[in-house]
């Protein structure tokens, strides 16, 4: 165990996390030139393209250090977005140390700081690594100052490297060996292993990713998940290189996988503790939380013929995403579909993109909603996350909406604009701390509904990317809620209905009407778009009629050419949804839920 090191790399976006991981993998010889590709740990196309990590990942790197000993360095890659902050915390809980990566030209940034705090919470050894020292704009002196003043770390502990050029890699590996403490734990204790992720494999079922803290586990053992007491027989254990490598057993200190006939990833809970059925540990490892979706939206196929395809795709998608939930739903305007729950808007975005990309589906999303709570006149309490199920207003005694505590860290110079943004979002009970010179920690209580709309984007924009943001759901609070409908040419489009605070209804309706006006192409007749509460129209926009095609000559030779042109347009139209007589493009549905500050 003294030859094991468990660590993670944390960094602000684009500071070179994936490139450094690639270099470490190459240096230790796990991967040869032939099977190398950039961003090895980002398996999904969408991760490579967006430069973000969505799923956690792990790889074990065998390394002979300068002290002559063989070490096993377990690198655990973590997601990098607030939607997945719970997953990040479980990954960090599996480590003893982190490499805190800082771009030599950009210096300390918002996520650098936020990640540092996370690592500190877990009492991890922190090694500051200055990356991209090959850049002409690199300013190492300044970065060193920032490490001391902004991060409060000893600048002498830093390592310089260029992941791109491959310099300083060995120094990084040596620091991992020398400075990150070896795992503690006792192999003779009862098994206690922390689940930090799970992936679905179509041949083997669920592959559980875990860190063993105490005891050991081997094929044939009966394991038990402590959160729900489910038991499984272990088929195989091992560790990760570029592929899975089978081992006889996993012991305390190890990072690896367990295959135990678990059917879907939904049966596995990140943060749960695995122990042995016949020799259980006394208590679970700390920090377990049941992850619950907070944002809900319905998904419909554009062509109703694709419903079955969508159903099949969701089932398959769900195999690999335990935090995604769905159930059947139907809309008067959009037909059969599914009501889905997400961890946040990025999660929603990702699910949508993966369904379109990996499953080749064209889908429409309804306006996302949080889960509201209504107490009815008869005392019954109901939860509503779908505007279609909004209760009869006459029967509502009390409406409540979920509130969060938002914690933000930002340079002092942005304080004014961030506070303004928070107030605009109905923020209350603010709290403020100076964490260092020029740095502020700010917290607000805000309705979750305000945050899921566009808060994150606007926060990043007003702080020019220097602010970090995290939130916890705290409670439900009474709120004056109404159901706001959108009518296109007099026809209610239920997928565009939203539950909103009464005072915000008009503004929201105006935004929706304006957005739709921009997104719905002109048609052959005038179209009215209206926002309404009950029967009362509170906002309106009009799309003028399109009145003239270019109707040039059309004789023998032109017919084929013209047909081909129209066929192209027709294909484009197929991606629109007919609501009554109006063709509405997919983009219109999306536009309604996007940022409302421009």
């Amino acid at each position, binding site marked *: 165990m003294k030859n094991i090191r468990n660590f993670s790399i944390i960094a602000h976006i684009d500071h070179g996390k994936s490139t450094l991981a690639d270099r470490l993998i190459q240096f230790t010889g796990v991967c040869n030139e032939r099977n190398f590709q950039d961003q090895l740990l980002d398996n999904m196309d969408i991760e490579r393209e967006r430069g973000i990590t969505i799923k956690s990942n792990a790889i074990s790197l065998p390394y002979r250090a300068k002290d002559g000993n063989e070490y096993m360095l377990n690198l655990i890659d973590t997601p990098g977005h607030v939607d997945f902050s719970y997953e990040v915390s479980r990954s960090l809980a599996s480590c003893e140390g982190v490499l805190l990566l800082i771009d030599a030209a950009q210096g300390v940034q918002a996520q650098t700081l936020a990640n540092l705090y996370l690592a500190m919470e877990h009492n991890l050894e922190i090694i500051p690594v200055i990356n991209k020292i090959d850049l002409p704009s690199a300013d190492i002196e300044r970065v060193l100052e920032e490490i001391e003043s902004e991060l409060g770390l000893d600048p002498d502990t830093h390592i310089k490297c260029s992941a791109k050029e491959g310099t300083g890699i060995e120094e990084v590996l040596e620091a991992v060996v020398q400075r990150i403490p070896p795992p503690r734990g006792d192999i003779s204790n009862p098994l206690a292993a922390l689940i930090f992720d799970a992936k679905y494999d179509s041949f083997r079922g669920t592959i559980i990713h875990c860190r063993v803290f105490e005891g050991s586990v081997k094929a044939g053992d009966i394991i038990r998940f402590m959160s729900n007491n489910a038991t499984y027989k272990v088929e195989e254990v091992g560790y990760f290189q570029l592929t899975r490598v089978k081992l006889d057993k996993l012991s305390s200190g190890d990072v690896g996988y367990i295959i135990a006939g678990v059917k879907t990833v939904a049966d596995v809970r990140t943060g749960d503790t695995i122990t042995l059925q016949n020799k259980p540990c006394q208590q679970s490892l700390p920090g377990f939380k049941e992850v619950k979706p907070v944002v809900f939206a319905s998904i419909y196929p554009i062509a109703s013929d694709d419903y079955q395809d969508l159903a099949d795709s969701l089932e398959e998608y769900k195999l690999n995403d335990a935090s995604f939930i769905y159930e059947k739903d139907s809309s008067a305007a959009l037909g059969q579909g599914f009501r889905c729950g997400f961890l946040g808007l990025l999660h929603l975005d990702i699910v949508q993109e993966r369904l379109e990309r990996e499953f080749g589906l064209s889908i429409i999303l309804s306006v996302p909603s949080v889960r509201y709570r209504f107490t009815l006149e008869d005392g019954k309490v109901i939860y509503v996350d779908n505007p279609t199920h909004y209760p009869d207003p006459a029967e509502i005694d009390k409406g409540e909406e979920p509130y969060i505590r938002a914690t933000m860290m930002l340079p002092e110079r942005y304080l004014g604009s961030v506070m303004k943004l928070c107030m605009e979002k109905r923020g209350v009970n603010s709290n403020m701390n100076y964490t260092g010179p020029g740095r502020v920690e700010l917290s607000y209580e805000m309705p979750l509904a305000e945050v899921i709309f566009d808060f994150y984007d606007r926060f990043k924009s007003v702080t020019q990317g220097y602010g970090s943001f995290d939130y916890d759901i705290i409670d439900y609070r009474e709120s004056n809620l109404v159901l706001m409908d959108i009518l296109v040419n007099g026809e209610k489009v239920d997928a565009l209905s939203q539950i909103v605070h009464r005072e915000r209804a008009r503004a929201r309706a105006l935004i929706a009407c304006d957005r739709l006006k921009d997104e719905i192409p002109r048609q*052959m*007749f005038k179209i009215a778009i209206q926002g309404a509460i009950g029967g009362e129209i509170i906002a309106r926009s009009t799309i003028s*009629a*399109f*009145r*003239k*095609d*270019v*109707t*040039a*000559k*059309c*004789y*023998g*030779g032109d*017919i*084929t050419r*013209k*047909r081909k042109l*129209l*066929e192209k*347009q*027709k294909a484009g*139209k197929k991606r629109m949804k*007919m609501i*009554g*007589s109006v063709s509405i493009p997919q983009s219109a549905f999306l536009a309604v839920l996007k940022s409302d500050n421009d």
Partner: protein
Amino acid sequence: MHTKTAGLYIHVPFCLSKCRYCSFYSITSVELMDEFVKAVVREMAFYKDIFPSFDSLYFGGGTPSLLTTGQAKTLLDAAQKYFDIRPRAEITTEVNPGDVSLEYFQSLRREGVNRLNIGVQSFDDSLLKFLGRRHTAKQAIESIETARNAGFKNLGFDLIYAVHGQNVKTWRQTLKKALSFSPEHLSCYQLSLDCKTPLYKQYKQDGLELPSEKEALDFFISTSMILTEAGYIHYEVSNFARTRKFESRHNRKYWNHEPYLGLGPAAHSFFGNRRWWNKANVKTYLKDIGSGKKPVARSEQLSNDELALESLFLGMRTADGVNLESLKKLYGLDLLAVKKRIIGTLIDHQLVILKNNRLCPTLEGMALADSLALI
């Protein structure tokens, strides 16, 4: 298979100069005209027993009025020899106002041509120059008068609108002038710029603007109003006839999915749900024919979906509209059932009407022919 009477089109791909807006295939050297005429005669032989009969023959171009009387006679005689040309067939030739004389018109009439379509385009010399036409307004008027003197009782004019420098007011004057000659037929085309033409390049370079949607609509509606008031029937987007009898029988075939045979380089043919077209090059055309080959560039078999779409966009260009019965019977498309809601809305907005199981565009609907086809 078509049992319907077909149209015969002969493309004469020669011009003394190219009009700056024209994207039809033609060359400016006339050396090969004799050879071309012989080749067309040989091409006719390929299709001898395929088309049952023709009730229209159309010389288009290019500039068919460059054909000498002798050449025109050769082609007409050959057509009679190889095909069943019906006794009262419509035989049209396109005419460039600069090329004509009384003798020429008279001999054309003798050989059987009974309809002339004169490329007047405009009665404004500066506009004609801008468009790159070789003739003047004076020549246009002379050619009309000469055609009448030669005894032609069926004249059509081509006019063009929405050209840079023109507005609805000056266009009205052009129409009034045209009406003063009481033509049997008028084709009024909105200028459209093909990106391969010199005029397109000039519009781009000089930053000239095409009319806005509103102006284009204004041109379109004004044209229809003026000509309808003068007693003409607006039977197709760009075409007007003094009485139904004078609607262009030949062009109707294109819009009604009736069979037509196109001879000469770049000419298109349609028969039995198949459309094919000849190579757009005089030399390869001659070479193919010379070696006993059909000069066909490509051919396509149209599926029911493709035919249905064509029926829709062609039908929506005509006042007679789309025959819903045959759309259902021939191509399996029950438009009224599938598009009930939108058709209802379009009727409410007076863009279409339902009449004798036909869906017909109104005047405002005709301006949106393509959009109506895509509902």
